[in-house]
């Protein structure tokens, strides 16, 4: 039992409640407290990363109930990694939103913090039903955030997003019910023990449940047939919200990793590697689809939203192949792409603010005032996102390419990934050259000026692509260890035997 595990959940919970109660307090006070909450959350995530780095599993059992009977939080390397990704992204998005994007909505900070709480529960929970609850917590906050900023353009994509996710929740519950009716447990460690023992009639029910679960996670992760809601919703959201949403698709990928490596992993008997041979072609098709969308997008934010789909495809392809090296490469790319996409959303908004009625559309417009600063940010973000050397996206993609064994899969992955990257470069260079170079004479009379907070936030998030190259050694060591840990289910199952705290001790 380690009480630190509750910190990433309790900190945003308390901060969010405080924000909800003080909607009428001065905005500077609310901003200070909200930012302090996010910083504290980052600190707690760093503490957990240091704790998890020794390679052991730590559990926190609510009410001291021995798993599988109670709800548990489980911390391992993967959970700690996801917490760090979220906390760093959230900090910069939050700093950006304090630059003015949080105005006009008294509950923006509360929603933002509740969203973080939902994300953190999803990463820490060791229970399938609690994962559902975490999804709902982060979704209902995301519905509010998506609507933030008003405007009629957001209602229709928002409605689609909400209805789709409600249907997704219904399917999630059905699949959870199917798995429970056969195995009689929802604790992930216990499921990993029980699933291999399933036989006879129950086998097909669990199989159907598992496949439906993949559909739900696929909807969250936006894989191909379920991704059409994403570009419209993300490109219409306010910049810090869209940037924070960059981690939401990764929750789906995290859930796929957790469930399909642990519960339906190599040791799952007849259900081993369920759905993974479906996932590989779908992942490649998602990648191709994202590239086509990026080429055809008419505004910078839509372009970045399609980039989210490209990254989902790039991430899931090596995961579906199931090798340890591929998993490690995917995790490295996950870090890189989440932060880069977040940074690009913020940069697109900065560009949009400087171009008057042209906004972020890829058309000619009067010159921007801070053209040099913005173009450098966009260049760094685009290079990292498209995967050109020397930034982090390149190393992520190289690691992914190296991880495949020679064969048909290698041929498919290499060709789709490389052609896709090449076309992504074209999409970004077309957008960049029109927006930054093809300008008409004259300046906009009153552009929204850059202020310190928004430029620092956007710049820092983009610069993480450089930082990741410098720290590539330690990060790769960590992701390698994470992949090795994820492939060793026996250690995870041991949490079922962890002795609880007794009253007398």
């Amino acid at each position, binding site marked *: 039992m380690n009480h630190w595990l509750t910190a990433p959940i309790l900190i945003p919970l308390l901060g969010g409640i405080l924000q909800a109660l003080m909607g009428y307090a001065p905005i500077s006070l609310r901003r200070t407290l909200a930012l302090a909450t996010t910083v504290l959350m980052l600190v707690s995530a760093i503490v957990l990363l240091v704790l998890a780095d020794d390679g052991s599993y730590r559990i926190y059992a609510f009410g001291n109930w021995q798993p599988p009977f109670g709800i548990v939080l489980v911390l391992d390397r993967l959970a700690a990694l996801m917490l760090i990704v979220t906390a760093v992204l959230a900090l910069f998005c939050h700093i950006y939103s304090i630059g003015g994007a949080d105005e006009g909505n008294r509950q923006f900070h509360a929603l933002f913090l509740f969203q973080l709480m939902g994300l953190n529960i999803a990463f820490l929970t060791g229970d399938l*039903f609690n994962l559902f*609850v975490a999804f*709902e917590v982060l979704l*209902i906050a995301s*519905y509010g955030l998506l*609507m933030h900023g008003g405007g*009629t353009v957001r*209602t*229709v994509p*928002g*409605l*689609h997003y*909400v*209805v789709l996710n*409600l*249907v997704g*929740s*219904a399917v999630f*519950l*059905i699949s*959870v*019910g*199917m798995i*429970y*009716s056969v195995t*009689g447990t*929802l604790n992930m460690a216990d499921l990993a023990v029980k699933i291999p023992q399933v036989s006879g009639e129950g086998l097909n029910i669990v199989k159907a449940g598992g496949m439906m679960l993949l559909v739900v996670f696929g909807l969250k992760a936006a894989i191909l047939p379920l991704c059409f809601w994403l570009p419209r919703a993300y490109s219409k959201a306010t910049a810090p919200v869209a940037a924070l949403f960059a981690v939401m698709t990764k929750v789906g990928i995290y859930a796929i990793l957790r469930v399909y490596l642990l519960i339906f992993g190599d040791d799952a008997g007849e259900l081993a590697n369920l759905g993974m041979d479906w996932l590989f072609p779908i992942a490649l098709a998602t990648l191709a689809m994202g590239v086509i969308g990026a080429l055809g997008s008419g505004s910078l934010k839509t372009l970045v939203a399609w980039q989210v789909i490209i990254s989902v495809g790039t991430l899931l392809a090596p995961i579906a192949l199931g090798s340890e090296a591929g998993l490690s490469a995917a995790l490295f790319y996950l870090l890189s792409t989440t932060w880069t996409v977040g940074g690009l959303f913020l940069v697109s908004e900065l560009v949009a603010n400087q171009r008057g009625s042209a906004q972020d559309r890829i058309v000619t417009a009067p010159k921007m005032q801070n053209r040099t600063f913005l173009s450098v940010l966009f260049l760094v973000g685009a290079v990292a996102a498209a995967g050109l050397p020397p930034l982090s996206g390149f190393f992520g993609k190289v690691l992914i390419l190296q991880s495949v064994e020679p064969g048909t899969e290698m041929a498919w992955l290499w060709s789709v990934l490389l052609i896709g990257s090449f076309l992504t470069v074209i999409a970004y260079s077309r957008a960049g050259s029109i927006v930054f170079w093809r300008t008409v004479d004259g300046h906009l009379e009153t552009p929204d000026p850059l202020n310190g907070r928004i430029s620092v936030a956007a710049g820092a998030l983009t610069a993480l692509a450089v930082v990741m190259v410098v720290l590539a050694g330690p990060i790769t060591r960590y992701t390698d260890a994470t992949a090795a840990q994820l492939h060793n289910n026996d250690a995870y199952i041991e949490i079922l035997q962890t002795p609880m705290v007794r009253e007398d001790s």
Partner: protein
Amino acid sequence: MELVFALVIGALTASGVYLILRARTFPVVVGLTLLSYGVNLFLFSSGRLATGQQPVIGTAASYSDPLPQALVLTAIVIGFAMTAFVVVLSLRNLADNEDDHVDGEQPYKSPAPEEGEVTGK
């Protein structure tokens, strides 16, 4: 009882899916509600159907599984909140776009009357 139970779940789910596929927000909301009822009943059945058994250990010789009941309770609470949200959002959609079509407006509108026809020139 099993047959009736299964038929009810099937009917609720089928009607829910049918209504969700309609293009107006009100049927979609009703469809989501029906679907969530179907799902909740299904969750109940995942703990095996039984009559007259209590979900408390020690009160009877055999007891029914308490976990699905806890799951259903959570699912109902979440479902209500989400339905309330989607109702408000549909109203907002109606107010913003003056149309309750799920896309904000009908894809194929009947052509607007000519200027001359309206003024009666």
